């Protein structure tokens, strides 16, 4: 007497809920992005306008490391850099051309461990605090997006 049409509504919604749960089943497969990198772009101010700056032969090495992240990469406007997950700062040697004196960029941040899913495990998210650089070639450094996660735009702008 009480249930007829209502019963069908509940059955339908039960199936919907089951579907909702199964869609959220993230236990076995890692389908999310786990790549967290600092996104950095090179710029210059021309006639009062922000223009892209193309570096002719870019070399970037992490301070304290011997391996280069970029080695004389031609015509580069932006790069992605891994931040050190074990410390609250990372420093990089940045040389825009092989015959120019390079600069050192230091980035300071706070870290947050993020459990993506049981299958994807942990990644570190960063919240940028400050960025400073020497001024052999670099004019200024500007933090655009403070949060460095799996999805982010250009975090740091470097002006030459």
């Amino acid at each position, binding site marked *: 007497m009480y249930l007829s049409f209502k019963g069908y509504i509940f059955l339908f919604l039960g199936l919907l809920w089951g579907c909702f749960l199964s869609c959220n089943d993230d236990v076995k497969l890692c389908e999310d992005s786990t790549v967290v990198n600092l996104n950095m772009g090179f710029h210059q101010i021309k006639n009062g306008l922000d223009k892209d700056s193309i570096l002719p032969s870019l070399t970037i090495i992490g301070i304290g490391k011997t391996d280069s992240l970029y080695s004389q990469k031609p015509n580069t406007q932006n790069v992605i850099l891994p931040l050190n997950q074990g410390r609250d700062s990372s420093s990089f040697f940045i040389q825009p051309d092989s015959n120019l004196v390079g600069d050192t960029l230091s980035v300071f941040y706070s870290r947050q461990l993020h*459990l993506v899913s049981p299958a994807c495990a942990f990644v570190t998210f960063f919240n940028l605090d400050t960025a400073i650089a020497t001024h052999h070639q670099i004019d200024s450094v500007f933090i655009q997006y403070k949060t460095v996660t799996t999805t982010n735009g250009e975090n740091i702008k470097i002006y030459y």
Partner: protein
Amino acid sequence: MGKILKFTISLLLITMGARGQQDSLRTYGLRLGVDLSRLVIPYFQPNRKDMEFSADMEIRNNLFGVLEGGWNTSQINNGPTFQYQSSGYFGRIGIDYNLLTHDYIQENNLAYVGLRLGHAQFHQQASHYQLIDPYWGNINSSIPLHSVQASWLEFVAGLKVEALKHFFIGWSIRARILLNNPVDPILTPYVIPGYGKGAAKGEFDVNYSLYYLIPLFKHKIEVPRISLPIPSGKLKKPVPSTKGKKKRPTK
């Protein structure tokens, strides 16, 4: 769009407003519920165990005070990569407003919208974790057990239908907005008890619950009865038709 809105409002006003009234007795009481959907979660997500209870009572006509509470434990063991544990409690306080009119005196069905304020208190730890970093070097570390709190605002819409006398089944759809973000500056929680995924600033959820109404007292109420709206203006006395009738000759 405007016409649809006008029609919907008119329909609502007709069903809620234009009705006669009659005095009768109605049962009031405390309705206790258990969320059945939480019992099913471990079959889909074996690392989670949840439980949720609720209590509601009509405090004014069609307005219900609601208390909800429960707990969650999460335990994930992903071999050499990480081990994570969390457990804690949550509570919600709020109100529901019933949109249905009662056609029968004993029918306590509800179609409601509501608001909740939720709070969770829980502990979490990563007894071991490994971060793979081919450039700066891999990290093997741990985060000790620590206390975390979270608060959120919740919008609810749902149904409660009396399937048997004093027994109700119901579902609700919930939209939650986290009020303190980040909840934990060191480690994003996998699950916030009573809220959902710890990484989400907003969360949707569906609950399926079974309720029992403990009848406490009966109260005389005015029972609404739907009647057709009377058109405005005076009713004219119907004029008898003279068609086909012979005109009486006048003397």
